[in-house]
């Protein structure tokens, strides 16, 4: 975390890269998370289907999907605008979904809902892959690249 505390102009402006090193990791991670979110909702709705009516369940799914996508999209966008602190938010969010998916998958498996458990397993795999991308060195380098160019840009704009 030491590098995040440095002043914005501590390093020279890096060269322009339209596809910065690690950008594919960032894209891969966000898309794997986008695919995981509906699976989280499917598992949750399978678990609580006995408690709520189908109509209420559909509304709940839609509302949760909007919230979850916004919670994923906004930090990802801010990260690409140099807000490196969002990296940690995304890592924690990913960990939360991995745990949620794993718990839901195990529960459904124990309840005998094998089909949904396999869907959950696919979700766990995708979320774990996204987590690996979030924590990869290349992802860190692209976060640092965005931080540098945006901090330079902001400090230039203030002058």
């Amino acid at each position, binding site marked *: 975390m030491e590098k995040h505390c440095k002043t914005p102009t501590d390093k020279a*402006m890096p060269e*322009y*890269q*339209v*596809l*910065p090193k690690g*950008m594919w990791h*960032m*894209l891969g991670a*966000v*898309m794997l998370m*986008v*695919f995981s*979110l*509906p699976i989280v*909702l*499917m598992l949750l709705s399978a678990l609580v289907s006995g408690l709520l009516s*189908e*109509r209420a369940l*559909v509304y709940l*799914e*839609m509302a949760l*999907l*909007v919230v*979850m*996508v*916004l919670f*994923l*999209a906004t930090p*990802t*966008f801010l990260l*690409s*605008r140099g807000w490196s602190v969002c990296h940690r938010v995304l890592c924690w969010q990913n960990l939360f979904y991995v745990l949620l998916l794993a718990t839901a998958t195990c529960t459904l498996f124990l309840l005998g809902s094998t089909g949904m458990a396999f869907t959950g397993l696919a979700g766990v795999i995708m979320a774990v892959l996204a987590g690996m991308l979030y924590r990869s060195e290349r992802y860190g380098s692209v976060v640092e*690249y*965005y931080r540098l*160019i*945006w901090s*330079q*840009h902001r400090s*230039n*704009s203030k002058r």
Partner: protein
Amino acid sequence: MEARPLPFQNSFAQKQLKARLAYTLNQEKLFTAIDRDPALVGAGVVFIDERGTSVTLRDFEYICLSKPVRIVLRELPSRISAIDYISEVKNTPRESRFVSEAVGAAVSCGAAVIGWFVVLTSSAAIPFSGGGSTVFSIMAYGAATASSLQCGNSLMRTRNEMTAPYMNDELDNEEWYQNATLALDVISLGGASASGLMTVRGIKLLRSQGITTRRALEGLSRQERRRLSREIARSNASGISNQTLKIMERAGKIERRFSNAAIKKATMRQIKDSIGATLSFTGSATSGVLGTLAVAVVSEE
């Protein structure tokens, strides 16, 4: 056959279909012909195009019939013959909708991938272009978020189509859902239009300097890059004088000469953005001419 409310795949496609039918189908003549048959007086009329988008042309009216009767006009997909299609409609009426939901999910998720690609690449370009494309970048964020939502929604609809198709029907009949999907379409299209505008602006800038896209990708001379950099600065601040331009260049506020690599990459980005825009449009809009129709009469027992 069990009568159930017919689905609206999405309201944008539905409006497109209504507009198409307004000039391709003589609805008054059709309704008159239906009402001539005593068994069909006041029957509701529903049209389903080859992609599964459906619109209600006329609601059922309780004139002579006590139980609702609907006439379903269904466009034939080009891949199968009329006879095969009729048996398909009779036996597996929802199968084609599963496929169309899955295809819709693939297109929405493809648009989301490209939407995020545009967000990440444009964010990398803004600090170097002096913030000229900030508004477009925020629109791209909106489009990427909307496409991600559509992707998630389509995946859930595909699941519904397998496990509980009536849930999709219920959603499709909700006005708020139709409005929400329309809003998402508009946001996606807004992002796509912004990408398109950026591409057009980039091409116009290159053309104003007599440079083709291919030459921009191959590499430009020092003078050409200098002229192009000035043109970009002028485009970002219209009405700027040469004097101010020179002062800003000296102060380092604007780029004196973009590198060949930067121009090549920006051109490549614009090409990719335009592909993203095309995908978003494909995901949202529908087109085509009126093809062969399958007609079904659906009534409640």
